[in-house]
């Protein structure tokens, strides 16, 4: 059987639109390839799917599932961009905001932040729930990178990127339940004593302002940052997010 034939046979339907998928793809992979946006935070093409944020929650033949981890299978009827599901996603985004400490106007990442962009996309106007105000440590020990745990959303993109892309093991999540927190792999527990460098992809992957590169703050003015010029739902925006505002001007 040729590849094209296989593709023709293998289709799933997202919000009434039939799209092809290849063996081994998840629903998210197939959707991204077809320029269909399914909101996501802990997922990034090229990294092992994680399935923790639950922003990509869809309904597959009426059952709740994570699009980023569920393998696409022939004949799946998927609801994605519905009012109910976007409501669920908005609630989840609000939960992520209130469990951490996010003071967007004071954050270097503002405008380039995927959490913020997703919140805009979902018409989130407030945190809705009472703030948790957790106490979390800032680690500024590294000469080139600062770790501000207040903003961490536990997506483990940095954990996986360091492991899978950089061939290191710099980050990990510790603790349990609401006490979960990001740690680094060194005897002192400080970032400076890990083998991370600013050349590592893990130093740039964070979707929020929890991992920032030092001495490059506000190089792109507010108003010309990634999500000032693009929406999160735009096809092909993934590589733009990673380049951050630096190159957003070129678009």
């Amino acid at each position, binding site marked *: 059987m040729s590849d094209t034939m296989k593709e023709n046979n293998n289709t799933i339907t997202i919000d009434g639109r039939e799209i092809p998928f290849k063996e081994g793809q998840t629903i998210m992979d197939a959707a991204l390839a077809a320029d269909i946006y399914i909101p996501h935070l802990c997922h990034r093409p090229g990294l092992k799917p994680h*399935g923790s944020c639950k922003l990509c929650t869809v309904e597959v033949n009426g059952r*709740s599932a994570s699009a980023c981890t569920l393998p696409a299978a022939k004949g799946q009827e998927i609801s994605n961009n519905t009012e109910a599901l976007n409501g669920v996603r908005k*609630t*989840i985004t609000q939960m992520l905001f209130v469990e951490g400490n996010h003071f967007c106007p004071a954050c270097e990442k503002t405008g380039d932040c995927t959490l913020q962009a997703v919140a805009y996309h979902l018409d989130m106007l407030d945190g809705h729930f009472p703030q948790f105000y957790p106490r979390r440590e800032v680690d500024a020990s590294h000469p080139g990178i600062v770790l501000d745990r207040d903003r961490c959303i536990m997506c483990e993109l940095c954990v996986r990127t360091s492991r899978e892309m950089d061939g290191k093991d710099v980050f*990990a999540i510790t603790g349990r339940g609401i006490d979960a927190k990001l740690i680094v792999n060194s005897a002192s527990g400080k970032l400076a004593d890990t083998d991370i460098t600013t050349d590592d992809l893990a130093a740039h992957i964070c979707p929020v302002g929890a991992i920032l590169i030092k001495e490059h703050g506000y190089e792109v003015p507010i108003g010309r940052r990634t999500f000032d010029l693009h929406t999160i739902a735009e096809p092909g925006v993934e590589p733009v997010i990673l380049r951050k505002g630096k190159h957003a001007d070129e678009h």
Partner: protein
Amino acid sequence: MESHNGPTGQTGAHLLHRLFEVQQQYMHIPKQSILELAGELRLPVSQVESVVDFYSFFHRTPRGRFDLLFSNCTSCGDTAMMRSLCKRLNVTPGETRADGLVSINETSCIGMCDQGPALLVNSRTLTGLTAIRLEQIAAQIEAGVPVPEWPVEWFRVQDNVRKNGLLLGTAFETGSGLRAALEKGPEAMLAEVTQSGLRGRGGAGFSTGMKWKFCREAKGDAHYVVCNADEGEPGTFKDRILLSSHAHAVFEGMSICGHIIGASKGYLYLRGEYRYLLNDLHAVLKRRHKARLLGKHILGQAFDFDIEIIVGAGAYICGEESALIESMEQKRGIPRVRPPFPVTKGYLDQPTVVNNVETLAAAALIAVHGGAWFSGHGSEKSAGSKVLSISGDCTTPGVYEYPFGVSIQRILDDCGAEDVQAVQVGGPSGTLIAPDEFERKLGFEDLATGGSFMIYSKDRDLLKVISNFTHFFAHESCGFCTPCRVGTTLLKNGLDKIASGHGTKSDVDEMYRMATMVKRRSHCGLGQTAPNPLLDALKRFPEVFEQRLVHDSEFEPHFDLDAALEEARQISHRDDAEAHLA
């Protein structure tokens, strides 16, 4: 294959076991030990650290030389007793006394619901607490008498089997199941198990024959059998008695499974709360080796199989099969993405069967007596019997075995429960039912249960019960997925607000909305069932909430302004009416 048990058969090189030893030695896990263990076991420092922080029984700062953990279960817990001992010994709950002698805290259900109130002292189980016993304990602690020298009868754990059935009442001759299985051969034996209609006793009720078949057919470098003895669901203690009095049948079920799926290694994952069973279990394993029921050439045939025991360290989520496997792999107990399921990709990514203790014991009997014998009992979709752990407001709590299809009322009559307000069937993750449902029947077609059966009389404050369960889930959430990590805490806070008399109708509506979201969108069974007590109570006992609500106001903030002024009042030495908000 590395061994986790030392040459003496004692637990050894597994990270959880090494951390337990360090915790016992220093009453905490010093940073230096983390670094050493990382070196010794060739693990990243961050992995060792994250395991220490994940499991409740490991601490970064020193606990007292006497470290007491009172169960906070509605059946085997008594936190009032905990507070009175704290007062007696001058201890703040959760903190270590300044002289380092003693620390006291709460822990989730320790499985002693038929003989509570109970606690763990330096990881040993102490049952049947009374005011007098508390006083004696306080005296021993103040006198510095080491726990091993305390009177042995304080630590006695009874089986309390009140009613035998198919499983507990059928005599099992050690080795008979294995002999039958080896004689029949794997295929015929698998057919017996499938024909028996046996379904998993851990809660989900998956067909055991199917599970074994899938695993047998899955390709891998090795296959594994895991016995799930994590028994963490509050109110469940039936695996405890299976392990203490029917261990041969359990191990034999594992071996039979191993023979069928082509495994040469099995693991029993024992909850840390049941550490007191460890020596006896190792002794049984030794006897089985001697009898050539374990090891090489079992019963002289070409079948090698061995069993190791891995002991957990206080984490309910590790009962979830994929989290359990992660824990076996010396990691935090985070449930995996499924599919793939353990039968194709389990321990060390190899095909693995995970079964409950009771399932495996039943399989051993099926090997002897045949599938038809088993399927002849119970109801249509639920073959066989169920071993129940009955606790709460009744005259004779304990272990009762019934054929599936038995009614709730019949069970209540047998254990001497009167004036019953509600029954929690299957533990907090199960179903809360009201008296008009007591004719309902136990079984996969109606009320499924992993074995917990908690009874609440009319004298109980049900809101406290629901609140207890909701706190339990927030405490035990692994923290991996957003709905459960944040949602269980929001539900807990919401219930606390109502219990404190500050809740309004809008708080109840908010909680309902959050509960349905957490139930539907969470990653694993913990989050998917955590809202059950709340949702069941809202449906069946709405008055429990309504009684506590503030009715003359649409909205009350979570924030208590008057309480927030307390610090200012203390500083200004004022407590007059003007220093308070109305």
